[in-house]
Structure formats: C-alpha cells, structure tokens
C-alpha cells in the first residue's frame, strides 16, 4: 500500500506492507534510527514519537495508520541556526544540563514523551511529570534526573517548549 507521511517536515512516500510497524518504517525505510526499539510490546516507550503532535508508541502503530499524518521523531526537534549550527530543543538541552540519562537508550523516547507532556501540561508539578512519564521505562532506573530535566525545561521555557 502507498503511504505518504510527513516526517520532521519532509514528505516521504513509500510502498509498504500493511503489517509494517511505524517504528520499522521510520528506522529502516526512511533511515531515521534515532527512535529506538526497546520492548516491542508497548511497555517501555523507547519508540515514542509524535503523531500530529501527540506522543505514541511507534511499535504499536502500523505505518498505514500514519498515512497522511505528521510524524515527529527525535531527529526533528533540533533546529538549525542562521550560521548553520544545530540548536538543540530546550528539552534536549535540559536533559544534557541535568544529566537526564545514563546509558541513553531510553532517552529519545523520554524526550519525545516529555515534550508531548509539556504541550498538554505546560506547568506540571513533579508528580505530574512522574505520572506523565509512566509509559517510559529507564532500564538504568535513572528517573531522578530525567524528572529534574523536564521540570527544568518547563521552568526555562515558561511551559512553551
């Protein structure tokens, strides 16, 4: 089936088998390998991307279900400055500054879940952040600094991240 998905602002049109999962389509067909496959059972959230601005687990969405949608992956968050240098998204900066990662495997999914969370709850409490990230597991159990990073990003951007 022919599928047209706008990924990080660029249209991608491909012939896909209906059973192709969105995460495999992003990684293997489009070549964006920032989105990780973790548990493959919609538990861990490592594969979190945005469809039309909302966080989803891309291992539990068929590529055909995203036909006509806008998908944002971790590669789509940073922008390019006028001088051509990359500018990290405020959430990426906050994860870096607060050391919101250990091995880093869950990080792309954490950042995507966190940006979706702040879009819905611009001024979260720490409890809001912890429950808002319940769909993302950190196998290093490094939640403390992840939560701190999301709180720091919310504070730094006034909820506009």
């Amino acid at each position, binding site marked *: 089936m022919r599928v047209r998905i706008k990924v990080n602002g660029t249209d991608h049109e491909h012939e896909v088998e209906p059973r192709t999962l969105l995460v495999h389509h992003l990684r293997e067909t489009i070549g964006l390998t920032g989105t990780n496959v973790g548990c493959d059972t919609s538990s861990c959230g490592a594969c979190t991307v945005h469809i039309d601005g909302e966080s989803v687990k891309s291992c539990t969405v068929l590529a055909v279900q995203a036909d006509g949608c806008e998908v944002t992956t971790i590669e789509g968050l940073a922008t390019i400055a006028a001088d051509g240098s990359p500018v990290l998204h405020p959430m990426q900066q906050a994860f870096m500054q607060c050391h919101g990662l250990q091995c880093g495997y869950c990080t792309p999914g954490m950042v995507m*879940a966190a940006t979706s969370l702040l879009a819905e709850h611009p001024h979260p409490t720490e409890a809001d952040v912890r429950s808002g990230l319940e769909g993302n597991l950190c196998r290093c159990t490094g939640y403390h600094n992840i939560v701190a990073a999301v709180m720091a990003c919310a504070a730094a951007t006034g909820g506009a991240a």
Partner: protein
Amino acid sequence: MIPCAFDYLLASSAAEAISLVAQHGDEAKLLAGGHSLLPLMKLRLAQPSVLVDVGRLAELRYVRESGDHIAIGALTRHADLERSPVLAQHAPLLALAATHVGDPQVRHRGTIGGSIAHADPASDLPATTLALGATYVAQGPHGTREIPASEFFRGYLTSVLEPDEMLVEIRVPTMQGAGFSFQKFTRRAQDWGIVGVAAWVRGTQSGVALFNMGSTPVLATDVSAALADGASAADAAQLAAAQAEPPSDLSAGREYRTHLAKVLTQRALIEAGAR
C-alpha cells in the same frame, strides 16, 4: 515482532466497515486505536487476514450531552475522555477512569469503543461503564440495537457483539452530582489492575463494578443492595467479592484478589461518600 501478513482496508463510514467485515466473515477484524489488537497480533494470539481500519471515522469521535445521558462516539480516544468538559461535569467517574488507562501514549491512540468491544475483564472502561449503568449501541447490517452494559459481557474477551456488528456509541447516564471513586491496585504504574473498583454513590443509590475479578467485569449488586438497606461502607464492602469468581494467575491468587476487592471497595465507598 511483526504481525502476520494481512490485507488492510480503510473504511470511510461505519456502514462501509460493517459491510467489509461482513464480506470477509471470521477472517476480518475491526481496527480502531489498535492498542489491544496489535499487541495480540504481534504475539500471534490473533491472526486476522483482513483488518478494516475504522480509526479515522471522525463522525464517531465525540462526547455530547443528550438529555439524561452523555453520548460518546465509539472512536473517542481515552485522552479525549480525560479532557472532556462535558464528562467532567456530568460523568466525572468516566473521565477519572480514563486517566488510569495504560499510559499517555496509549491514551492518545486507544478508544473507548475498542476497549469495551475487546471485553478484557481487567480493563478500566468496561467496568466503569458497567458501574455507571451504560448502554452500548451496536450497528450491524440491519440497523442498530441497544445493549445494556450488564448484558454485554459474556466471558473472557467475549461479548454479545455479532461478528458483523460494530460498537458505535456508548451512552452513560448523567451522574447528577453522585460521589465517585476509582480504585486500582497495580504492581507497576502502567499495568492492568490486579483488582480495581469503579463506584458511585448518591443517597441510597449506588453502582459498584470490579475489574479483573472474573472472566467479565463484575457488577457488585449485593454491595449496592446492602448500602440501600443502610449498611456501612465497611459492612457493604464485605460483599464485594460475593458475586465474583476471581482468577489465580501470576499477579495474584484467588484469596488475595478477594481480599483486595473488599479493601478497595471499602476505600471506594468511603471516598465516593465524601466526594
């Protein structure tokens, strides 16, 4: 894990979806949010050869007042229920229950109709709508029929829906200021409840339903009858498991579930009485 191969058909209306499913018989399944079906397909526990996608039917995604009840389109997503001002005002127990489904990513995709049609006895929304005395509307090749929630669930993952019927609307009576509570005991945040209770109380009237306490969600009418007769929350809660046949599995044994049902029901009745 990748599902077995299947043919994908995108339906542009409920009637078209029903006609497509009817053409393909037992081989076809309706796909809504996919958050129950796709995991089963990846594990090869379900292997439909045709998927009819109804997930884009915007005309079945709504929450609106309709006289003495709230009408909810079957393709309304859990996140929509959480955010609905209509539910917040008229059926806050359902809005609260929606916040307990899975995790935010799941709630962005999963639908109330999909959850109810899947008929998982451990799910939050089948039990909650049962407690609220909801009516489900099913559409088939020959029109629609209304099915009381209390007559809908027939066994594990089994309902009275015919293969060529589709759940199109959920009608929830307005709560009219009733107190309410949702209690769910989980091992991990995003898990299904080991046992859960959805309850509302208004004067001598109440509705209490349990989940993961049998092969279907369980309406604990004994508890409501005891409350109507003037029993205390603590005494009424002792009857919580009287109508249930809880399973023993890796999460919990039958005795433990029975105990949890009583404890959670007591908490629910006390909170509902105070809210």
